[in-house]
């Protein structure tokens, strides 16, 4: 069903009554992992920041990058769905996200941004 193929542009512009506290951006185009899961880079940066603040044990750069090294644009959605099925979820500002998508956002932040959180 069409509605089952919801793109995960869940941090897109939504200035509705202040309901979203996570920041908003427009979904990016182009081929990338974030595009595959429909999260724009600005949103990803803020998800990543919130995620690392909530889960400081995930901050280790090498481990973080290793954890998402096997993820590619072809399997990312499957991995995310498997996360949900297995209960591998994280809570970021109340949003229940898969561990994989949260780590992808953190990994996509860039070293500089990560250092800001935990230099």
């Amino acid at each position: 069903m069409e509605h089952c193929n919801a793109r995960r542009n869940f941090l897109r512009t939504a200035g509705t009554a202040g309901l979203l506290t996570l920041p908003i951006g427009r979904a990016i185009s182009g081929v990338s992992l974030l595009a595959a899961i429909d999260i724009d880079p600005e949103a990803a940066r803020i998800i990543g920041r919130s995620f690392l603040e909530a889960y400081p044990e995930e901050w280790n750069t090498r481990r973080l990058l290793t954890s998402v090294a096997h993820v590619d644009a072809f399997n990312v959605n499957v991995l995310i769905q498997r996360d949900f099925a297995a209960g591998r979820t994280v809570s970021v500002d109340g949003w229940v996200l898969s561990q994989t998508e949260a780590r992808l956002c953190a990994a996509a932040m860039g070293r500089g941004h990560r250092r800001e959180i935990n230099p």
Partner: protein
Amino acid sequence: MIIDSHDLPNGHRIEADLVIVGTGPAGVTIANEFAGSGTRVAVLEAGGLVPTEESMDVYRADNVGWPGSNPAGVRARYLGGTSNLWTGHCRPLERVDMEERPGIPHGGWPITLEELDPFYARAHAVCQLGPYDFDVNSWTQRSGLEPLDLDPALIETKLSQQSNPTRFGAVYRPMLESAPNIEVYLNANVLELDSTGDGAHVNAARIATYQGTELSATADTFVLACGGMENPRLLLNSNNLANGNDMVGRFFAGHFYTASCSLLLGRNEIAPPLYLLPAVPAEKLGIPDPAPVRLRGYFCLPEGLMREEQLVNMNVEIYPIDPWADNGKARQSWDLVREQPSAFLGVEILPRHLRRVLRDLWRLPGHDDPVEDFGHDVARQPNTTGMYALQTYVEQLPNPQSRIRLGRSRDAFGKRRLQVDLQFSGAEAASLRRLYEILASAFGKANFGRVRVELPRDAVQIRGGGATHHHSSTRMHEDPRLGVVNRDCRCHEVSNLYIAGSSVFTRAGVWNPTLTIVALALRLSDHLREYFDGTLQRAA
């Protein structure tokens, strides 16, 4: 015949075989079952044909329990009772709501779902519903409306049907006026039931009008049908009638609703129409009634999971959160306010309805059928935010400490008002949190948006929302130490006094109680008819 008690002389005595106190869904259903029979029925309604301030004032109560409780705001005191404020949602109880099960102490009904089933089928006609069928697959075949494809081990779609809704006072008024054996007395406030010295038999109902006239009603049998709060109040104000075990008013419960969870879908994607109150045209159903059948899909826990994890029953409905979309409530509010402006007299929810109307005023013209528009209009247009509120109704655990009792203040008739002490245990919030975890997992697994939970991890109380559907305050139980009425809805301690309505629910599950109120009223009517026919002997 409908009689205004103000026209009766002081001291007038009403004589009948059966006295019914209250004209809500329970009282009217029982009266309807006796229409045209050889039984003389007197129906006593405290209000008139429309609500008045002096009538509504009697409902005021002191709230000393959960602050979200709103004792006066969700009841109506005139012909038709609270059906005048009913939204119309109908679904029977579920097996898991009636059984005694771990984690739900005091939860088992003395009757089974199978015993209620034939009465539910009859109740459908009384409530002007579509076919007695709540099976999702069969409705999908009829209507083409598909449920969301979620893991059935986690989340199940359940359906309710929406009554028009039936305003029992208006719909059944012709019957009440024309039945030769029925007399309805308006403005007849029953202040007290006079009983024999041992409280084992009711002799008469003492009645007063707003103009100070005092009346009485005598009968062989009395039925209290004045609601989940007034039934116990009348017993307590009648010298603690039927309360030898201090059970009247205990286990008082309501349904809590909260929207501490939201769902965000992808751009241009919409929730399946099944969950947005669609109307299924009668021609698709092959039924003669031209009125469409309105459905609503809910996200619910499977019964097996509720038993396994000892969770209370809950249901989740979705509402679009979109400032530019009419979410249907504006139209519903407009119709309610327009049809019965006086219904809101003294009711605190009027400003909320007016706000909805003002907000979506520009959308009101051109919508002939608000409910149908709601389902299709909203479902077909892209939701510009993709945000949906996951409004959740939560069952309250049976709790003897949650109760109503008489307070110190008195109403205009000098009778003591209620003191409401609604309490819940904390297990409800734990169940709610678990439900949201499961929902997030099921939606994520199906790649259906993402869920945000706004319920604090340490929450022991449910925030926001309110409590409606008052029930269980004179509950049914075979053991007089745990309930006020037996399986026949007769008071354990009073041989000729029956109770109808949600106050007899042993437990209410999570669904709107009206269909079950009507089913139980039909069951009680059959019982009473057998008695008046002489085929049933009543134990002393």
